[in-house]
């Protein structure tokens, strides 16, 4: 599973990354967290409000810091 965090490096993106990390640890699954910081690539996803979280190429949330709980629920739906 690939989790991408889109954002140009503001504090909110770091918080999002943290939450994703926690979610993965709690579920104990194999997942790769990738930070996407280039504006061009962020736009490619059609995302305008950062931070955004993408799981396996699907935009899950944009413009909001997702909570650990939310991320866990998205991952579980995917499984």
């Amino acid at each position, binding site marked *: 599973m690939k989790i991408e965090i889109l954002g*140009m490096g503001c*504090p909110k993106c770091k918080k999002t990354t943290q939450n994703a990390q926690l979610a993965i640890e709690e579920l104990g699954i194999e997942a790769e967290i990738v930070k996407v910081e280039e*504006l*061009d690539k962020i736009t490619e996803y*059609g995302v305008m*409000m950062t931070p955004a979280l993408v799981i396996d190429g699907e*935009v*899950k949330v*944009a413009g909001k810091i997702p909570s650990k709980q939310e991320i866990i629920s998205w991952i579980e739906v995917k499984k």
Partner: protein
Amino acid sequence: MKNQLKVFVIIGGFLLFYFLPLESFGFRNPIFEALAMLNMYAREHVIFSLIPAFLIAGAIYQFLDQNAVLKYLGAKTNKVLAYFVASVSGSVLTVCSCTVLPLFSGIYKKGAGLGPAIAFLYSGPAINVLAIILTARVLGWQLGLARAVGAIIFSVIIGLCMHFIFLSEEKERQANGELQFGVNKSDSDGRTGVQNLLYFISMIGFMVFANWARPQAGDQGLWALIFQVKWYLAIAFALLFIYILINWFKKQEITPWLESSWSFTQQILPLLFLGIFFAGLLLGRPGEEGLIPSRFVATLVGGNSISANFFASIVGAFMYFATLTEIPILQGLIGSGMGQGPALALLLAGPALSLPNMLVIRSVVGTKKTFIYVVLVVIMATISGMVYGNIIQ
């Protein structure tokens, strides 16, 4: 190499402190002014404007559905509507300056196109709630209003100019794909739109009345009347706010709200106070001298001549202002003799453009469009400064 550097630093530091002109007025006064400026902001602006402003910004971020606004900037939106939304939506979308550029890029590439994207880029930094509140509070409501209105009107004009200049290119360029919003905002938490509106009104009401300015002597109108009862009004709004918070909000909603307010505070406040310090150091409080002599400022940007307005626009366009720092800097400049017109010109050109963000804009739209955009901003800021300067005098 490392050691050499250390030697230089130590020798440099020694020389600096050895020759520190502590006795000289020209050295002591700017330091005093810098501290006095910080003191003034801490006393006058923190409790009744900055804290409520950060709370409002946090609430906008947390409780308003930004996607409802973004919908209108998509590729299929009616063009007139897209320009309108782009020019005013900065007030709810760009509480943090780091969100402006992704939005700009998104609107340009996947949404309503070049014109609305430019309109958004121009007005966004000028009309976010924090900027409007602090401009009006520190520099006076006239300049606050002129800044907001000027930014909105000129953003549309500049957007349209860009659209028509690059009309043929725009027609060829097909917007590819649609905007993604991810999962929609969680349930509306059981509050109606009216309840949310009242929540914002109670915060804004408190702030407006708590900051109601002292009327001019002899003024017996409504303004003076409100001033007499301003604390009753402010307290009434504060009580309404507390009532709303207790009755309509769940505890788990209040924490994220405070958290996002806190994160804005962390992001903006340190730089703002650094800006205030340097504004005091270089320019002094209004009526006092800093490192830069007042007559120097007055010659360059005093009055309301074309050259003064033009100079203010150019400086504003290239200089980088961290969020909100343009305000204390401008306060210092006005105090040193800058005219009202050039002040507005700098406010309009300043936060919208800077050398670093020109580079990012260039990476999105290319050199030619960036150049034309910068030229348009400088011209429009100069004109609006002239017009405003004439009205105010």
